[in-house]
């Protein structure tokens, strides 16, 4: 072994021999065997290295063990390590209970052993290299602050102190602004607080300095509004929430700042281009923010901005946020506002309707059953009077052709056909007969539904549709009995014989039989549904059967009454 006086030992060199670190001062007998702490590196260059270095300096035994393993340490160092561990394990205990735990003698020995090693008393908790982020955090460029040079880090610390100082002055200024507003009288001077022009100017300088510092320290985005000349006159209202608030969100700095400016401008009812930009900025971060959307609409109307332009912008946002519904209410408000300007111009109206439909087709191709899009669409048809627009019905047929099970499309069709104010009676319930609905219309729609039923008989959409049409038109369900029976073969004629191609047919058939007073047949349909074909609805079929006997009883009672009258 080469002499190693005050010279950093390369780990490799010490690997074969026991590593010794026990120092000289406490035990003269070991003086000669002393070596330097095993892992002493060259001077630390980064912050992380420095903290590691400090750790190793205060926990030499542990550092050596980490590097060489316990068995490679000398006896003395092993003893030292054990003492170190014991002391650290118990260092949270009060001194008295610690000595009780270890016994006075052992305690003394431990102290004796480690006293001269610069260990334990200021021992630091180890932080692993692999988790520097939790230690130092990252800067705006995503760099680990731990990798900063010590110089750079100290520079950073100075800036943070400077920022804190500015923030304190700024808070004082804002407080004074508030006091001035409230006519607060200063107790010492006996005068009302007045914020001077000079103070305002100073605050402006302060703000830009703060913004620059924040930008440098925490990243560009944080300072975006605060550093912008455009927002200089606005005093943001920070998020107010008590300690321990529930479901509190750790807002990203950019969002928190934008929201604090939003609160400020909203409280002043400011409507301006910069407010509009602010809403866009927030919507990009959180599109589900109803307050921001309503405020955006208010800005557009107050500034008289172009509605078509806003709709164009909205299309992009809608495509990027398919599940969001605030977007659709915003669109609704825009159209409400825009409609009067084109209402008297049929060409403009038709042009606008077409534009809207084109967009709806595009967005529905992404998400064919989007509830909010369909809700908007039915509202739009009513608003723009698109009832007679053939394209509207055609585009619905296209969707049904693409997926005959798209129930949203079927629903829209029902609305389009049966809510047309040209013949629909206002105020009629959807499951009520409307006398104004023509036979021709009913036939057309029944035929359409039946054609689609053949494609997939177990698809409930056209069955519901057809039933709805018959009821609207005041037609007997029995008028489609022949069609329905096509899907049910040899009911009740034995397991082998019986065939049901659509449980919905069987359901409707039960209704048809009941309508004709053929209760036994109806009951058979319901029983077979409950027993075999649609067992999950056993409770429902049982109820339907009970309804049959009940209506039969009512019929019976009425017949009896009639007979009694006849006899009398």
């Amino acid at each position, binding site marked *: 072994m080469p002499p190693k006086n005050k010279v950093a030992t390369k780990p490799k060199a010490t690997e074969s021999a026991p590593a010794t670190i026990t120092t000289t001062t406490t035990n003269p007998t070991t003086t000669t065997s002393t070596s330097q702490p095993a892992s002493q590196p060259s001077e630390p260059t980064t912050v992380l290295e420095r903290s590691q270095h400090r750790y190793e300096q205060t926990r030499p035994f542990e550092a050596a063990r980490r590097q060489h393993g316990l068995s490679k340490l000398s006896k003395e160092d092993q003893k030292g390590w054990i003492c170190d561990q014991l002391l650290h394990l118990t260092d949270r205990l009060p001194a008295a209970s610690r000595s009780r735990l270890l016994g006075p003698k052992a305690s003394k020995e431990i102290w004796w052993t480690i006293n001269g090693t610069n260990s334990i008393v200021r021992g630091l908790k180890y932080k692993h290299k692999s988790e520097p982020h939790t230690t130092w955090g990252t800067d705006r460029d995503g760099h680990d602050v731990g990798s900063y040079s010590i110089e750079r880090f100290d520079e950073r610390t100075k800036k943070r102190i400077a920022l804190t100082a500015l923030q304190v002055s700024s808070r004082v200024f804002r407080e004074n602004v508030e006091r001035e507003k409230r006519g607060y009288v200063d107790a010492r001077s006996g005068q009302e607080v007045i914020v001077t022009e000079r103070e305002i100017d100073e605050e402006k300088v302060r703000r830009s300095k703060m913004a620059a510092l924040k930008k440098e320290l925490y990243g560009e985005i944080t300072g975006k509004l605060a550093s912008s000349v455009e927002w200089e006159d606005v005093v943001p209202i920070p998020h107010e929430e008590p300690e321990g608030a529930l479901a509190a*969100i750790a807002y*990203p700095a950019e969002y928190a700042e934008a929201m604090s400016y939003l609160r400020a401008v*909203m409280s002043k009812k400011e409507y301006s281009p910069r407010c509009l930009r602010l809403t866009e900025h927030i919507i990009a971060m*959180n599109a589900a923010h109803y307050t921001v959307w309503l405020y955006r609409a208010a800005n557009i109307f107050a500034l008289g901005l172009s509605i078509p332009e806003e709709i164009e912008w909205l299309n992009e946002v809608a495509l990027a946020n398919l599940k969001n519904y605030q977007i659709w209410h915003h669109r609704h408000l825009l159209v409400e506002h825009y409609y009067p300007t084109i209402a008297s111009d049929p060409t403009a109206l038709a042009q606008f309707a077409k534009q809207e439909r084109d967009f709806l087709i595009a967005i529905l191709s992404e998400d064919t059953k989007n509830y909010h899009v369909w809700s908007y669409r039915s509202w739009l048809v009513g608003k723009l009077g698109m009832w007679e627009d053939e394209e509207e019905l055609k585009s619905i047929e296209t969707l049904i052709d693409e997926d005959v099970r798209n129930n949203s499309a079927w629903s829209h069709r029902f609305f389009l056909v*049966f809510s047309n104010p040209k013949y629909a009676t206002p105020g009629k319930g*959807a499951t009520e007969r409307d006398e104004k609905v023509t036979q021709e219309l009913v036939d057309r729609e029944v035929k359409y539904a039946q054609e689609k039923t053949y494609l997939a008989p177990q698809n409930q959409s056209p069955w519901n549709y057809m039933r709805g049409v018959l009821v609207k038109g005041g037609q007997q369900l029995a008028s489609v009995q022949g069609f329905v029976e096509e899907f049910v073969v040899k009911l009740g004629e034995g397991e082998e014989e019986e065939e049901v191609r659509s449980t919905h047919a069987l*359901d409707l058939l039960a209704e048809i039989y009941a309508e004709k007073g053929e209760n036994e047949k109806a009951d058979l349909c319901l029983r077979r549904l409950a027993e075999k074909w649609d067992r999950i609805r056993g409770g429902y079929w049982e109820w339907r059967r009970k309804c049959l006997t009940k209506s039969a009883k009512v019929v019976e009672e009425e017949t009896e009454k009639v007979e009694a009258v006849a006899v009398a």
Partner: protein
Amino acid sequence: MVVRTKGARCRNRAIFIRKFPKQKGNMAASNPTSRPNLDAITDDDFEYVDEEFGSSYSPDQVQPQPEPMIPDLFKQPPLVKDDLITDTSRLQDQTVDHCLPFLAGEDGPLELNDYGLPRLNREKHVKFLKQSLGPLPGRFVAMDASRPWFLYWCLSGLTMMGENVSSYRESVIATARTMQNESGGFGGGHGQLSHLATTYSVILAIALVGGEDAYDVIDRKGMWKWLCTLKQPDGGFQVCMGGEEDIRGAYIAAVIITLLDLPLDLTPESPAYDGGRSNLLTGIAEYVRSCQTFEGGISSQPNNEAHGAYAFCALACLALLDNPRRVIPSYLDVPRLVSWLSYRQYAPEGGFSGRTNKLVDGCYSHWVGGCFPLLEACLGSSGSGSKEKNRTATGLAAAPETLYSREGLIRYILTCCQDQTKRGGLRDKPYKMSDAYHTNYVLSGLSSAQHQWDLDSDPLPLSEGETTPTMAALGADSIWNVFPYIDDNDQIYEDSDRVRPIHPAYAIPQKNVAGIKAYFQGRSGFA
């Protein structure tokens, strides 16, 4: 593979014997007061009886483990199926494929009972909800306008699982204060506009933690004035100033008005003000009626597609306005509605879907499942107070023991909706992430499947010349009794997996409804 712990079959299984009679047919004859009421349901109402063989169980005597008792209905694709493939059928088939292994107990090494069901993993779900109460990481920023919902979902879910949430009182108070606006109502957070949805969730959260300090947070007068500004001439409510009008608004307004015992008069500032003829409740029922669709279900607004969430809003809203036995058939086509709701349940999945030809989703366990207690009450099947059995206001037959497959729903919930990883919580369907919303509504659905509700009051007679009830929020005081639902066949889940019952219309425990009502009923003015 079915993995079961040793002795799962023969373990010392405790079964419940009812102390009160299980009468269906002649309930009118029994004295309702002799039966235990909601909050009296504790283990004392039952006797534990050990099954004979259980106590002498020893591993050597165990026979080869029998297959768990899972009906074929939940193990196979439906009998009737079309060949035509479209986007809808593709998604449906995929969902069935995803659910089947869970339904058969083959998705992992879970301890299953004799019926092939895992336990309700309370501990994990409780932990999940407590974590969802925050603090939440930055990616939750998209929920910034929905924070009050987290309060309701989490506290409600915890309450159903038997947790005492009164320890959250102070934090609910502190949080709610930052959300309340001087102009009345609660918004999603500091500086956000008041919204009916956020107000609903804050009020229910307050009711859940209870206590005068909490009730006192609510600015009742501001609330009343604000509600007046949202009331529309057609009877409905906008959800916020300048916001959309829909059936959620109608339901939530009915909840707020009845819980806080608000005056019904309209302020002259109200868009619906007509010199005093109309009040806050005028036209709500008509608005609800206008939302029923040709399919029989209910849509968010007139002329849209029928959707499960709005069916619950419609029925619960009506049930707060008047006795459900009278008001529901007066305004809705009940046979069509029952049909549509029944069709929401799918096999083999067992769960409910929200619309025709859409997929099952755990949250509809509440939105659709929660309709059945209200419907069964409307059909008068279970009301011990109803004078004539088998005769209902609708002229329809009384509902049978149960209108839907409770077994199917419970199977779907326990097998498919539980996140069994260490994350916990409940979810839409397998392979979806659990969240606070689904955790609460799946549990609400489980609760309604495990209980049976009796409406113990008859409608008050109409005054002369009236054909429909005068809206005076009479339904809000309906007396509801609740009992554990006990299947004629075996109960498929463990008794300890029964969660607490919640009021059929307010969706929080009756005790909490009574607490907040009692506090505000004392102050009909704005003293």
